[in-house]
């Protein structure tokens, strides 16, 4: 069994596009069951870091380790494919623009991956869909198509879809940034519930209030480095770094 303290390890993460360095030597450990928020201005690299965790945007240097297994292994193509697909089944991701499959109902969206990858029977798959969609409050619209759902509803289905694979880790990439303000809360509620169930979560967000309320740790990133890190009370109320203070001043004063 792995060290609980180093459930997710990011070691010297580096990402460069030619000469442009988007991530400059970032190291981070996340405990099992911890909720980590990453905040920062656009271009700070926070989304890039998140997307490196499941190797969606592979790092150019450094390692990502989940529960003792390195995620971003360099392997010959076929082996890499098998490895990364297996790893990704353990990591759930929720996108800013939902990315629901438009040609499938909510039920089908949720059930597709478990059926295809875990060989669930029709009854088990249906039970799973009902369970997950109920959890996010979308049971009523289980057979609706994404085009028939509001933004908040779509995102909740997206969360259910990710949860259906029973991941060890959930990644949220600005999950509420594309939502109309009235719809943000319903998604936040779902995420809060997940936090209460001790799911390990890494959340890239602009929602400072939400981060403060739900997260155990906050990271402030700017220009590819982690500028400041700590519990929300410290980072938000008494930041030690000037850059953090400046960012918070701009962000909390203006519209979200």
């Amino acid at each position, binding site marked *: 069994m792995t060290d609980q303290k180093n459930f997710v390890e990011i070691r010297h993460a580096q990402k460069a596009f030619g000469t442009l360095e988007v991530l400059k030597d970032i190291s981070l450990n996340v405990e099992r069951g911890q909720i980590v928020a990453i905040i920062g201005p656009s271009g700070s690299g926070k989304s890039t870091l998140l997307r490196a965790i499941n190797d969606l945007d592979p790092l150019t240097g450094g390692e990502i380790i989940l529960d003792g297994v390195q995620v971003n292994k360099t392997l010959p193509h076929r082996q890499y494919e098998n490895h990364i697909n297996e790893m990704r089944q353990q990591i759930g991701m929720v*996108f800013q623009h939902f990315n629901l*499959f438009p040609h499938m109902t909510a039920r089908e969206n949720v059930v597709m991956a478990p059926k295809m990858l875990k060989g669930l029977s029709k009854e088990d798959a249906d039970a799973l869909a009902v369970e997950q969609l109920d959890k996010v409050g979308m049971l009523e619209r289980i057979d609706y198509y994404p*085009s028939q759902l509001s933004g908040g509803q779509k995102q909740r289905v997206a969360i259910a879809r990710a949860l259906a*694979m029973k991941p060890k880790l959930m990644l949220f990439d600005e999950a509420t940034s594309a939502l109309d303000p009235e719809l943000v809360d319903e998604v936040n509620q779902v995420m809060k519930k997940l936090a209460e169930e001790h799911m390990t979560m890494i959340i890239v967000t602009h929602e400072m209030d939400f981060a403060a309320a739900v997260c155990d740790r906050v990271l402030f990133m700017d220009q590819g480095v982690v500028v400041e890190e700590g519990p929300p009370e410290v980072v938000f109320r008494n930041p030690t770094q000037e850059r953090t203070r400046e960012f918070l001043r701009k962000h909390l004063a203006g519209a979200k």
Partner: protein
Amino acid sequence: MDIDLMLKVYPFFIEAAWVTILLSVLTAILGLTCGALGAAARLSRFALVRFVGAAYVSVFRGTPALIQLFILYFGGPQIGIQLDAFEAGVIGLGINAGAYMTETIRGAIISIDKGQREAARTLGLSQWQAMYKIILPQAARLMVRPLGVNLNMLIKATALVAAISVIELTYTAQRYIGSTYKPFEMFLLAGILYMIIIYVTGRGVAWLDRKVQIN
């Protein structure tokens, strides 16, 4: 306008129309197959395969279909390919159409939002599973209308086989113009039949397009 003449000869045009239809169907099938293969090639992860695909599109869209037909039919025997005119027509036009369809199919596939691929891969699907379950079903819905345009072009392109003496609509028109000296009437007969074929095909495409839309 010589209606009596038209009434006398139109049966030959009807017969020829069936040949045009048969040519169109066979060519379309071959074209779609080549198009699918070409698109797959252009999207391959192997640079060499991608190059072959791109070369196929460039060469067959960049030279006249008539010349391609002539190379196959007249030049074929020199490299051991002996085809009759009808066969050469189908194969030549089919490969030609395939180059255009490759771009149509490929265009539809790459137009699918990359977030779709990302979501599928994030769930743990392999490249092939993501393509098969998520990308292609969506791309297929986008492809129907543009492929319909390709099909339209293809039907008109079948006229080229008149140049290698396949007895289809255009050949028949030319033949009867030669014997009756009534080009306008013969044009009308062939033209109306072409337009009927194209109209019916267009309705079929529109129907298929409607059918594959989501809800």
